[in-house]
């Protein structure tokens, strides 16, 4: 079992890495463009359903999902896009799922902050 993190701290590190890669740029684009925001919302809903529709997914699951997604996609030929030049309207579903994971992770983080 070495597919990704099993502790919240490690999961946070992994998710930060994805956020720097595509997540921050994607969420910024979604905030700027309602059309892009819709795509992000759809991806977010899909990821939430894929993990557990009945609850807000914890950081560990989000990070593991993102790891599994990118590992399989990379083995099938997908490459991580350059966030500075990506056209978010034409971004692929893998990328959108990653951005959605980052969006969900941010929600979890906000929840943690309010809970604490």
């Amino acid at each position: 079992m070495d597919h990704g993190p099993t502790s919240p701290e490690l999961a946070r590190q992994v998710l930060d890495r994805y956020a720097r890669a595509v997540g921050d740029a994607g969420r910024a684009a979604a905030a700027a463009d309602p059309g892009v925001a819709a795509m992000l919302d759809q991806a977010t809903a899909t990821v939430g359903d894929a993990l557990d529709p009945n609850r807000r997914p914890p950081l560990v699951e989000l990070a593991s999902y993102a790891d599994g997604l990118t590992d399989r996609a990379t083995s099938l030929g997908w490459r991580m896009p350059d966030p500075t030049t990506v056209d978010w309207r034409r971004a692929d579903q893998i990328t959108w799922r990653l951005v959605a994971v980052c969006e969900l992770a941010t929600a979890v983080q906000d929840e943690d902050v309010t809970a604490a």
Partner: protein
Amino acid sequence: MDLGEVATDTLRSIALFLPKALAFVAILFVGWLVARGLRMLTDKGLERVRFDRLAERGGVAGVLARGGVDASDLVARLVYYAVLLFTLQLAFGIWGPNPVSDLINAVVAWLPQAFVAIIIVVVAAAIASWVKDLISSALGGLSYGRFLATTASVFIVGLGVIAALNQVGVATTVTTPILIAVLATMAGILIVGVGGGLVRPMQSRWEGWLDRAGQESTRVAEHARAYAAGQSDASQIMSAPQTGTVYPSQAAGERPASAEPTAIIERPASAEATAYPQEAEREPLVPGFDSDQTQPIPDPRPRR
């Protein structure tokens, strides 16, 4: 044999016996007097040197008091009976070798050992008492100070008793098992007391460990499930047609008409949107990568 001879023999026997008998009685009487005198002297002498005080501190007096004697009284009586024994030895020696003399000789030969044994017990009891005072005053503030002091004193008294028993010639086959039994009892008390005190902390610690293991295994299972979900999602996305259609509305900057209307959230272009001035400073994840090669995928919500 005539009557005269018989009478002569009898008279000779009596003549031979009478002095011995008189000497025997005289020796016994004198010895008894000497024994009484020595008993009184010993009692007074020991009281003069405060032997009772010593015995009292040793805690032997408490035991003796139940028998109605004090320690100096006891020693004085011992001296008394010893002198009587010597007297008896001497007196019976008159009659030549006989079983009573042998018995008395054996008892007299044993007396010094008994005396030393008594001394050992008294001294051991005194040491035990001092140790008890010392420990209970040094550790008086601690809850187990009294227990420790009593244990130490009992232990020392036990050692003294065993040494005394060895001294009086009670076989070590008896005293050694007693010693082992005492030590084993103390070990058992220690094991149950100290070990029993650790049962509860260890129990709670074990519960904590098992709880954490359970949480960890649950977390690992969730993590594995999420990882597998990501893999299968990626497989579905990548197996979908790579060169799909782009919604015209998307190209025109509009929302696709067929998209679920409830899934759209209007987001104002707030300050957050412009809060990425450092975006250009970031080095691309894959150098030389052309993002134009990234293919748009037509279906926004592929089913699993």
